[in-house]
């Protein structure tokens, strides 16, 4: 006789195997759809692999995708540590990009002054963008999911207003865009800029800091059981507020990197869904901050794959479909990984 039971502690190995199977499942479905579209699987696979990993352009693209994903992923991950869902990384990202662009566009300082200023401005703007939802959640119990989400639309339309109105490009006449920002994050190789290494450093530091600081422990406790945190003498509301505000600052810094490192302009649609994809990255990473790195990498590969598929006349929404399928498959596999077969003797 055998039955299945649910483990309360799931070994990491089981999770890993489950996720590998989930990824395999996603690719299987993808292959099936591509076949139904009449595409040759071999050609598509070769094209995806060579254009992503085999060309300089592809590798650069990968690095440029990873940078904002790391930052928004870190933002969502930090909030999750406190049991909060920051759905507003997109808006905070845009707020950070806007503030950083303002510094880059209008302040006549040399780059070594402008860049730190822009980074500060980006973080402060992102923090401010999440401050109102944070305060509402911490002291009034207003769901942060709704408020952070709604602020995304405000940020998005604000950027559209700026780049088609007061900040519109009157030099080259680029549509829905500001003028080129002269201060730029220095590049390492080709178009890849120092934002990437910085993002990696931020993620690593975040993991170390939270694991070894009182604040990290208090945050985890507040997120896990606010009542027990109160019993332990932790003031829960300020911790939750700080977590969401820091989360916003991280997303804002990501926005600054995108505007001053990759795009060099403030544009409508600059955020590119990075805020929402950051949720996926954070979910993939689970408890560990360092796991954000492979998660962001995987997401970047999928984004790159989307470009290749577009060249093959597959709809641009395919990226969203693949991402959705991936989240779904991983949620299911994580749950199933908790179940083991139990042999019982007669």
């Amino acid at each position, binding site marked *: *006789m055998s*039955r299945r*039971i649910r*483990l*309360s*502690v799931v070994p990491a190995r089981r999770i890993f195997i489950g996720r590998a199977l989930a990824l395999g499942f996603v690719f299987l479905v993808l292959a099936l759809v591509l076949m139904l579209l009449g595409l040759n699987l071999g050609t598509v696979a070769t094209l995806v692999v060579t254009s992503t990993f085999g060309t300089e352009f592809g590798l650069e693209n990968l690095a440029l995708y990873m940078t904002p994903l790391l930052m928004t992923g870190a933002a969502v991950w930090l909030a999750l540590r406190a049991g909060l869902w920051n759905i507003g990384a997109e808006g905070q990202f845009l707020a950070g990009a806007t503030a950083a662009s303002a510094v880059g566009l209008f302040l006549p300082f040399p780059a070594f002054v402008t860049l730190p200023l822009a980074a500060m401005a980006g973080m402060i703007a992102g923090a401010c963008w999440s401050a109102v939802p944070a305060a509402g959640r911490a002291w009034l119990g207003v769901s942060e999911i709704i408020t952070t989400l709604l602020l995304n639309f405000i940020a998005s339309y604000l950027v559209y207003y700026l780049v088609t109105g007061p900040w519109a490009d009157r030099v080259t006449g680029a549509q829905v865009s500001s003028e080129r920002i002269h201060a730029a994050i220095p590049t390492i190789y080709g178009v890849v800029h120092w934002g990437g290494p910085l993002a990696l450093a931020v993620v690593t530091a975040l993991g170390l800091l939270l*694991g*070894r*600081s*009182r*604040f*990290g*422990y*208090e945050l*985890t*406790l507040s997120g*896990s*059981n606010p*009542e*027990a*945190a*109160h*019993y*332990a*003498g932790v*003031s829960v509301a300020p911790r939750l507020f700080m977590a969401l505000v820091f989360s916003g600052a991280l997303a804002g810094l990501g926005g600054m990197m995108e505007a001053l490192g990759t795009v060099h302009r403030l544009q409508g649609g600059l955020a590119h869904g990075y805020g929402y994809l950051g949720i996926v990255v954070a979910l993939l990473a689970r408890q560990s901050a360092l796991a954000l790195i492979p998660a962001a990498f995987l997401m970047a590969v999928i984004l790159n794959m989307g470009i290749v598929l577009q060249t093959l006349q597959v709809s641009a929404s395919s990226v969203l479909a693949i991402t959705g399928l991936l989240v779904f498959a991983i949620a299911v596999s994580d749950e199933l990984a908790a179940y*083991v077969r*139990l042999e*019982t003797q*007669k």
Partner: protein
Amino acid sequence: MSDLLHNQETRPADLPAGAPPLLTLSGIAKYFPGVVANKDVSIDFYPGEIHALLGENGAGKSTLMNIVTGLYQPDEGELILDGYGVRFESPEAAIAAGIGMVHQHFKLVSRFTVAENLALGWRETGFRLSASAMARRAEVEAERYGLDIRPSARIDTLTSGEQQRVEILRVLSRGARLLILDEPTAVLSPLEVGELYAALRRFRDGGGAVILISHKLDEIMALADRVTVLRHGRVSGTHLVAHTEPSTLVTEMIGRPVEQKSDYPRKMPRTDDDAVMVLENVSCRDGAGQMRLHPLSLEICAGEILGIAGVTGNGQSELSDLLAGLRSSETGHVLVDGKDMRGRGPNAFREAGIGYVPEDRLHKALAPALGVTENAVMRLFRTSPIGGRLAYHASEALRFTRSLLDQAQVSLAEPATPIRALSGGNQQRLVLARERMISHRALVASYPSRGLDIGAIALMRQTLADIRDEGRAVVLVSEDLDELMALSDRIAVLCGGRLMTVVPRGDYDRARIGALMSGRNGGASS
């Protein structure tokens, strides 16, 4: 088989020969990973008897009842109802077969009236509902089972005793022939206990069967006809209550005789009796503005155990939260060692040396999803060597956790295990050990024996007496009068959030304290 059951009293005393059991459990077994929850459990439940199920926590009582009510399927063995083998695929199937359970935590909709709650369970409840029809129906059912209820009252205005009556009536009105009650007297005042007993006896005399899950021996001796003792998931004996002694049952329950001491004398004379904590005119309201604790003043002295008696929910949790700084008083002062603690949080109380084992440990004193380590250091993560102003040292936290596990006598290989994976008893032991370490001045312990088995309770009580002997103060909140009378130097009685009186050790009188608990002013003795 028959000689195996030789010394088991498998039939009620005055049962006509040939009368078949209502429900037979035959060789039931249930396994969970690494645990045998039930094995070889065979019990007959006859109509017209109150059958008690006795066992320590983890002895398999709950699992067995979950099988009987269709929540679990047995891995082996079968259920025989009225002579036919049955299989309950769901709780609904068990209810349809006439098996109803009254849970320890009532499953009532608190914003609905009594009549509406009763209507929820009726199969015949139609598409259209009229309030008067529901009320009429409720009255008819109440009449039929002799349970006194007010159909139009809202559930949240009722006492726990009244709510329990509604719950029982709901189960009965759905046609239950076998009524299962899980620890039914835990939330009742002594007066209500009497009413419950009467109702259950009436149901039994009408031919119903009752299964009473309990670990209160006197309750079983007073009410039950037969008793089955479970140990480690197996039946260790079935007896006619009239033919057995409490001490036999205890021995069967835990496998060895345990003496429940009625007195814990001091090992050395008390040297110091200064007031450690002083409450002056403190009071509390709940979120709805209702007075939960009326202004009261109390002194807690070094080297004493102050018992707090009362029916659950009469202001005990507010009082203990106040003593530990989790809640601040609306009026008056809380003084610790002469210092006013107004506006100071739980951490200030912890620093002042006041430990607190709250009532709902899993949700109030532990973070269930976090690891044992995170939970072990919950109160001490600020202090060296685990933490500093900013730092948190995971390796020191782990070392501390291992020593705490040792002290609590909990064996655990992997301290990263989420604490919810531990048994209730082990969680309780860890909290108690942790808080004992903190309590230089005083320990506030709310229902510390809840969730512990008899052996562990004896150990816990001895621990409280030791803390007292070390010259620290203990505040013991309990619903168990025997426990309070055995340990306490004084007993404060709470009823409806009011301090009725404080009884010194010399004047303990069970009847008088019982009367005070149910709000009568103990006038009998004066």
